[in-house]
């Protein structure tokens, strides 16, 4: 371990240290003084993590005995994760105040969850990935149930914990199976373990997949791979493991729901992307691909139909997140094709960023319109909003149009990218099913637009006091439009970086 190693892992380290510092400062100082200062301190560390990550852009380096790797994709995702954490901390100050919830712990939990997610996105060794996912998940369980006085929130936390802990065990089992299968295969074929890499390292697995004949279709490995992929899909809220997502999003306060929905997807899909790139072009038999197609289409259908008749807007966003996870999996599917891989990685990255911005913004509107910290959750509460609060209605309208993939929003471009990658890998009928799903989803989003603009309301003006949420929502809406019209100016350079430096493949070893 040297300075270079620490620099490579700088972002998660800064977030973790920041979490501890925030927690200790909160402990040491008087309650009233900490509100502003704690937020400031937390933001400071988030920004430091972003800067640290940014200094690593444009190069490919591994650290901690090849346990982690940093390249364009990791930098993009770490910056995004830090930004999500910072925005969540800013947007939550109002609800924490209203419910008299402890603030120091809250900020610390957000930052620790973010640190775990960052470890996950940069891990090259599956054991590191497991450590990352646990750090992230444990913080998530607490956050989901953070409003202890409210039954729904407690229920969400308990459900999330029980399911999550179970899935972690499966993940670990999958990693163990992969470890065993890689070791056996390499021994049997007289292959050397690459110098400085362990059996659970992505690079070793890649070598086994590509150099050992028949390894990709060996039952032991495939079982391990399916367990690994399946449990990561759970973390990302992909159907059929989606049951907990709508409950959690409805139970948790809106800013937390936004944080959980985005951070988990960013982290899980990034590590999945890495795993899928080593599977690309390898002979893994039909079964693996079929399972992935199943995940994608099931999510799209279940998510969109589930969203169609919700009464609660947070549940609607919960189901919508399932559907969007499905589209991301479609992109992952395209990344299995050797030719469409580069396009697919760009598309998935763009999709994740776009989804994160839209979702954070949507939940921020829910918090913005809330009263006394209670979210404006019932869709009926949005009736006539266009007349009462035009700004909020237009902002939410932009997010809904983006979620349904209408042109001139970022949602259109991200769907376009995924479909282009998918069709160039030859999945025509899959694309058609996905398009049908989109049409169903469209109805769900239009219902809310219709409530907001097409009806008069009998309700009184809702005086919104949550300035922070308002700020977050409006800036996210601006980004949605700007990125939908001129994505190149806003974000495309970083994606190109991620494609220019593809995730480590077996070639690096030789």
């Amino acid at each position, binding site marked *: 371990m040297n300075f270079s190693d620490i620099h490579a892992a700088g972002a998660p380290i800064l977030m973790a240290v920041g979490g501890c510092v925030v927690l200790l400062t909160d402990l040491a100082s008087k309650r009233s003084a900490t509100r502003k200062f704690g937020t400031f301190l937390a933001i400071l560390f988030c920004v430091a993590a972003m800067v640290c990550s940014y200094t690593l852009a444009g190069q490919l380096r591994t650290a901690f005995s090849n346990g982690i790797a940093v390249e364009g994709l990791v930098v993009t995702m770490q910056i995004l994760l830090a930004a999500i954490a910072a925005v969540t901390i800013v947007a939550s100050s109002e609800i924490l105040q209203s419910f008299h919830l402890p603030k120091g712990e809250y900020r610390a939990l957000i930052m620790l969850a973010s640190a775990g997610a960052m470890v996950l996105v940069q891990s090259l060794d599956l054991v590191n990935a497991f450590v990352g996912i646990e750090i992230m998940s444990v913080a998530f369980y607490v956050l989901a149930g953070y409003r202890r006085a409210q039954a729904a929130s407690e229920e969400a936390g308990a459900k999330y914990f029980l399911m999550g802990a179970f899935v972690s065990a499966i993940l670990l089992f999958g990693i163990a199976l992969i470890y065993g299968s890689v070791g056996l295969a390499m021994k049997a074929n007289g292959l050397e373990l690459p110098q400085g890499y362990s059996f659970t390292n992505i690079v070793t697995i890649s070598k086994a997949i590509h150099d050992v004949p028949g390894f990709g279709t060996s039952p032991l490995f495939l079982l391990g791979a399916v367990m690994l992929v399946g449990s990561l899909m759970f973390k990302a809220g992909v159907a059929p493991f989606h049951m907990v997502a709508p409950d959690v999003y409805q139970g948790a306060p809106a800013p937390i729901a936004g944080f959980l929905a985005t951070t988990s997807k960013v982290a899980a899909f990034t590590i999945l992307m890495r795993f899928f790139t080593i599977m690309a072009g390898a002979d893994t038999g039909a079964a693996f691909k079929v399972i992935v197609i199943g995940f994608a289409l099931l999510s799209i259908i279940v998510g969109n139909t589930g969203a169609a008749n919700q009464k609660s807007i947070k549940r609607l966003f919960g189901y919508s997140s399932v559907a969007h996870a499905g589209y991301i999996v479609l992109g992952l599917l395209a990344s299995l094709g050797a030719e469409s891989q580069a396009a697919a990685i760009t598309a998935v990255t763009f999709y994740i960023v776009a989804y994160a911005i839209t979702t954070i913004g949507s939940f921020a509107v829910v918090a913005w319109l809330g009263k006394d910290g209670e979210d404006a959750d019932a869709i009926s509460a949005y009736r006539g909003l*266009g007349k009462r609060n035009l700004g909020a209605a237009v902002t939410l309208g932009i997010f809904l*149009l983006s979620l349904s993939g*209408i*042109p*001139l929003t970022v949602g*259109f*471009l991200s769907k*376009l*990218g995924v*479909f*282009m990658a998918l*069709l*160039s890998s030859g999945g*025509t009928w899959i*694309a*058609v099913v996905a*398009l*049908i799903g*989109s*049409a169903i989803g*469209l*109805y769900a989003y*239009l*219902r809310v*637009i*219709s409530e907001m*603009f*097409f*009806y008069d309301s009998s309700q009184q003006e809702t005086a919104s006091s949550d300035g922070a949420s308002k700020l977050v929502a409006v800036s996210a809406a601006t980004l949605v439009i700007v990125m939908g019209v*001129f*994505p*190149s100016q806003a974000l*495309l350079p970083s994606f190109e970086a991620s494609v220019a430096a593809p995730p480590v493949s077996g070639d690096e070893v030789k």
Partner: protein
Amino acid sequence: MNELILVIVALPLIAAVLASLVQEKSAKSIAILGSAIACLVSIFGITTGGTIDRGFHHVFNAPWLPKLGLMFSFGLDGMSSLLVLLTTFLTVIAVIVIPAPKSAVRAYYLSILVAGALTNVAFASLNILLFYIAFEAALIPVLMSIGMFGGGDRSKAAIQFFVFTVIGSLLLLSAIIGLRIATGTFDYLTLKDLVAAGVVDPSLLRWFAIASFIAFATKAAVVPLHAWLGRAYINTPTGMLLLLSGAMAKLGVYGLIRFTLPLGGEFAESLVPLIVTLGAVSVIYGAFVAAAQTDIKAVIAFSSISHMGYIVIGAVVGDDAARSGSVLQMLNHGITTGALFICCDFISRYRGSRQVTALGGIWSDSPLFSRLLLLFTFSSVALPLTNGFVGEFLILLGAFHKFPYQTAIASAGAVGSAVYMLWMIQRSIYGGSKSEGSKVISLGVSERSVLLALALMIIGIGVAPSPLLAIASDNGHKVGAAMQPEVK
């Protein structure tokens, strides 16, 4: 002058932004000013000028997202310049003659101006992805306009309209992406050359033909993809309805002529008998449904299905005269139906009802108005010396020798239209007023001049159609054009 189309699009958009910022009472003047200048400018579009590329003039190219193949590529031929002119013209009369709802004046003008501008982007686009983006984005202002300012059933109408048309256009999107993957370009002219040269995978072209046909037929409300139309038209506020029925529905026929047939390969040719048959069915179906209505707005709305049936037949039948007639008839339908919807709006505003059972007495109360309305009706039933006659006659003439049965059936629809339109006029205009205390329809100066201008156009095109026909015949389908790529 290559930036012509940018000016035509930008002026209403600038006016839209300004109109939504200023005070409510100035919004209308700004909207009129912006759309009127755009309309005047678009007259220059029908003259050949600027850079010329493979039959298109005023060709303009600028990158938008070159990595995705998305470019600001514009160009006009006779057909698209006429349709751009129609759109800008309808935008002007919509803002002049139809008063904005009091609840949200600025949003109302914003939606109309943006819808018109995006429709023009679609008509003038030579990049097929840009076309798609405009085609779909133009739905948002219509959605909002129906939902916010529409009739009693507005929420349902808006959602139904939007979901129906978006499903169609999503299919189109998948087909466009397929073409891009096969050819590496979204550029229309390049695609056309490649398809004509026969180097594109036929199975892709088949998918493109099917998907684009569904998308465009939905837009043009061809039976059986017309289900959104009735509720949508009846509930759309008249100003937006002028654009929706007059200009945006034409995007469907335009798409068939411009994209489905040239880019769909041989399979698209084999779809023609089906499309012609569906067109003939639309003519008859529209006539029957219109005849059964008692709401005059509904009569005109369903008569649109019937009229679009003719236009679709002429567009696809593969005869030059019929296609020119079809393009001209798109213009005519925009003018005539627009005029009828405006009259309908006056009647419901002054008389408080659109039901034929509650009207009557207008002929004696409002002589000028009712005579103009009669003229518009004549144009709608395609009486000789009105514009409708020229278009329908050319379509039927050109279609007859290729599809005699379908054309014969469609011709019967012309009789039908005379029946239901004149019956509607007879019940709503003549006789004594059927409801007490109804107001007399009095036209202001601007309203009167708009209606007179429309009447002049109707007679003008009917008497001397040849200049417009010459322009309409320039629609990218010269004889044999599908067989060999044109040389630059």
